[in-house]
């Protein structure tokens, strides 16, 4: 495909607000899920309790 055709298509997508809105929503959802999955180890460490005695 010619470079000018690619550029025209990309410009069309970037000017399409609805497309950008959907892309942003999907990206945000994926990023949140990903961050949660890599940081989940940090929220699961119980401390010592005296219940065992």
């Amino acid at each position, binding site marked *: 495909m010619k470079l000018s055709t690619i550029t025209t298509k990309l410009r069309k997508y970037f000017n399409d607000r609805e*497309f950008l809105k959907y892309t942003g929503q*999907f990206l945000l959802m994926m990023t949140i899920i990903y961050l949660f999955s890599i940081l989940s*180890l*940090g929220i*699961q460490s119980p*401390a010592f309790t005296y219940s065992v005695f």
Partner: protein
Amino acid sequence: MKRLKAFAAALVIFLCITGGIRMVVMHSGVHSSSREFRYWYNPYKDKSAPSLQEALGKNTMVIFGSSELGHSRKSPYYIKNMFSEKALDAMLIGQPYSQDMNHATTLAALAPYMKSRKVVLLLSPTWFMGKDTSPENFSIRYSDSAYIGMLRNPDISPALKRSMAQRTRHLLRNDKAALSRVKAYDAVYLNDTRDPFTRLKARYYQNHTMLQERAALLMAEQYRRISDPGTGASGAPGLPGKSGNAEPARLHSSGLRSSGPIVSPGTTPDWQALQEEALAGVDRKTNNPLMMKDSVWKTRFRSKYRSSKELHAGTETTVSGEYGDLELFLQVCKEENIKPLLIIQPVNGFWYDHSGLKAPARDGYRAKIKDVASRYDAQVTDLSQYDYEPGVLTDAVHPWGKGWVILDEVIYNYYKAP
């Protein structure tokens, strides 16, 4: 159609972002070469086998334990505060619920990187009570990077790896996610599967968990810097003092020492005097029937004292699967030519007599530990003679000032021995 294209575009951008996050997290410096890191009482440090490997110095001796490593950390007799770096170079590994199987796996992962071939294992009596290790407790302390390190250690025989893998799978039976990962690792590293899907799955799990462990460690380090900008961890009260001074440092009227590490290279501590000094510091704080720290008695034991009569009566002390895990730990030592020291910690004799686990039952698990150790020529130090001494324990099992002096002496003599 537009949404599909938007999803595809988001996915491409997402993959670029995750690549960037991964690069930043994996290449961010963790201060693993510092003494502070080696003594840092933190679960995320213990889970990250690569960070522990990096932290090992030329003379570093690993001390495995559990919750006792987190008690009395501000005491001048706590191991980190007691010794200067040149007197004792040690790394503490252990958290509440860490037990033999966790430590056997971690040791197998670290052994190829250890220059010192000595390790200390602080044995807690609660590990050996009951029928077996709690799967939930094991799962909390299970580390993927340590497990993979064990599987990839060329010095460990396939038979031992299989035994450890089998036991790990049994202990993770209630944690389906971790079990699934372990099975994938076993398929690749133990059984050398050629199935590309399984290999891909194992590679994905390995990369992802390594990223998780690293991210958690970085967050923990940042939190430590914010909460304690001085040392980043709890340290001894007072200012650094002279090193190489054979005389004990002066005491404040509060009973706290006025200078830094008590033991420096070239000094021979007067352990008896240190024990008496530590005891003098707590003399007025044990006014209860269990001779434990008054504040712990009031907040944790007083309300349940009456109802806990014979609470532990009938508790099994010689049948636990934990003895098998201890054997696995010793087998790792044997195959790695590591000389272990097992320390059987004292317990609060008053508490356990009251709650029904009397001396004969307690002697039972001690005898069994010694029996297991004798089969591997492992050195054992039994501190049960301190079960009824004041100032040794803050509660049922955790060391106090004098207790730490006793442990310090045993560990230091072992470290210094040829």
